[in-house]
């Protein structure tokens, strides 16, 4: 587990590319370590895609479901290099299936969802926490209103902390497309958030 957690921090970009492709074939054969390594590399990418569709309260569990579904069908993948795209498509399908099953609109994050000790929260005072939760709500709702491509890419950058190059490598998009999605998405987000963006932590 620590190997997987440390993989992204320790490997350079080229090494990272080698890392995940080398583990697809073993993962197809049921190699648990290979599957764990693929999860370590792609978990944040999948989480951002799922977050873009189903909201915070279910995103983590749906993320785990995505990997379960993918590894159940990974023997269908003929080219390891296509794994990234295969995974991202599976994430979107899983998110949409989840919404269909729940038969309602994407969950919008509410302040109550953030009452958790394992979230990265701010100051200890209740008043400060309330402000932070409202800010998170506002930003997330603004993101939720963006077109899907911009929304997913921005979540990968702003929540998962991925660089444009990492987003391209992990999703199969071109660098140019990622750049456009981030730039245009950010412009639309600015319009929606307006002056709020500059007020003490968005």
């Amino acid at each position: 587990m620590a190997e997987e957690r440390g993989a992204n921090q320790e490997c350079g970009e080229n090494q990272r590319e080698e890392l995940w492709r080398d583990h697809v074939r073993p993962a197809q054969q049921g190699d648990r370590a290979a599957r764990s390594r693929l999860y370590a590399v792609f978990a944040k990418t999948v989480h951002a895609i799922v977050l873009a569709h189903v909201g915070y309260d279910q995103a983590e569990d749906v993320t785990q479901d995505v990997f379960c579904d993918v590894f159940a069908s990974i023997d269908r993948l003929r080219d390891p290099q296509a794994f990234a795209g295969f995974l991202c498509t599976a994430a979107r399908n899983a998110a949409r299936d989840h919404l269909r099953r729940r038969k309602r609109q994407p969950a919008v994050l509410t302040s109550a969802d953030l009452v958790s000790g394992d979230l990265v929260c701010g100051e200890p005072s209740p008043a400060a926490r309330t402000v932070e939760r409202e800010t998170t709500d506002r930003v997330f709702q603004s993101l939720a209103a963006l077109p899907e491509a911009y929304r997913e890419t921005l979540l990968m950058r702003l929540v998962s902390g991925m660089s444009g190059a990492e987003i391209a490598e992990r999703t199969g998009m071109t660098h140019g497309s990622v750049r456009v999605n981030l730039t245009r998405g950010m412009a639309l987000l600015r319009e929606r958030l307006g002056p709020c963006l500059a007020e003490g932590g968005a």
Partner: protein
Amino acid sequence: MKPAADRRESEYLHDPRASVDPEIAALEQALAPLRLAERPLGEAALSVVGVRRRVPRGWLVASGLAAALAAAAILMVMLGPAEALRPGSPVRSFVAAATSVEITLGDLASIELQPDSELEFVHWRDGGRGDGSGSDGSGSDGSGQALFRLKRGSISVKVAPPPRVAPGFFVIETPHATVVDQGCRYDLVVDAEGWARVFVHEGAVTFGGPGTFGGAGTFGGAGREVFVPAGARALVTADGIGTPTFLEASREVKQLVAQFDALTRSNEDLDRVSDRQRLLGLARKLAFSCREPRDSLPLYHLLLVASPSVQKVANGALLDLVGPPDDGARRSYQPEQWLAWLRVSAWQVGG
């Protein structure tokens, strides 16, 4: 917000290593609560296999037999005989590189050390009631203790159930917790930082401090111990031991359990009234979310929290979910009474 005329595309938007753009950094901070929590890939995804195509039955039988024979031949060549331990065997380390290693303790227990794993055998002290007739330890009565340390990697363990092997005979230490067998079959994985997770296939284990690093592995004081029955799993990190849940528990239950554990880890003493109130609130939410009898597993562990209010919530929820132990009256019961009842009712396989 920057005026349109002054707005330049910030490189920080495309590369977090570039000079920080305060506007984008503010968005990152606002969205920080949504980040994916550090957690390992679930057991279901690690072990799932795809659906096989149907083949004619005759071919299936023939090909299956041929494959089994071939695999057995290959295994015999590659692995050789299992490593056999006996009472009094000296300390030794087992390292599995590319292939797994099987370690046997007579007919009492077997360990399969998975590839890329390291296990240290510490001792096997016989209880002394066996006749010791078996040179491989099979005459041992399983009443002493066999102690191992899993330094890294994963193992699958099978231990003969009582009365063949006494509960507590088989003990595995990991850096942050110790697994004590209660007569079962389980998988245990330890990573390079000492985080461990256990999944029990049959029987049960207790999973508790202090571990080989000597840490408490606890919350609420030293020595937290959790009970992990068959079909359930638990995770331990340097911060403490998580409350176990059954694999099929709902997402809501698992999430609330994680929140409860995080709150108790972050504040072991619960000195502040606000923290105690939050804890009680979480306990109530968890109790409300528990709708299946097997959700009683995390509820049982709430009985062990050092808070009478939380214990009361847990006791009430257990009464509603599984009924009073031994069909007794609706009242408060001790944790050990609940444990004995739940082990033979809701936590039974198929219960």
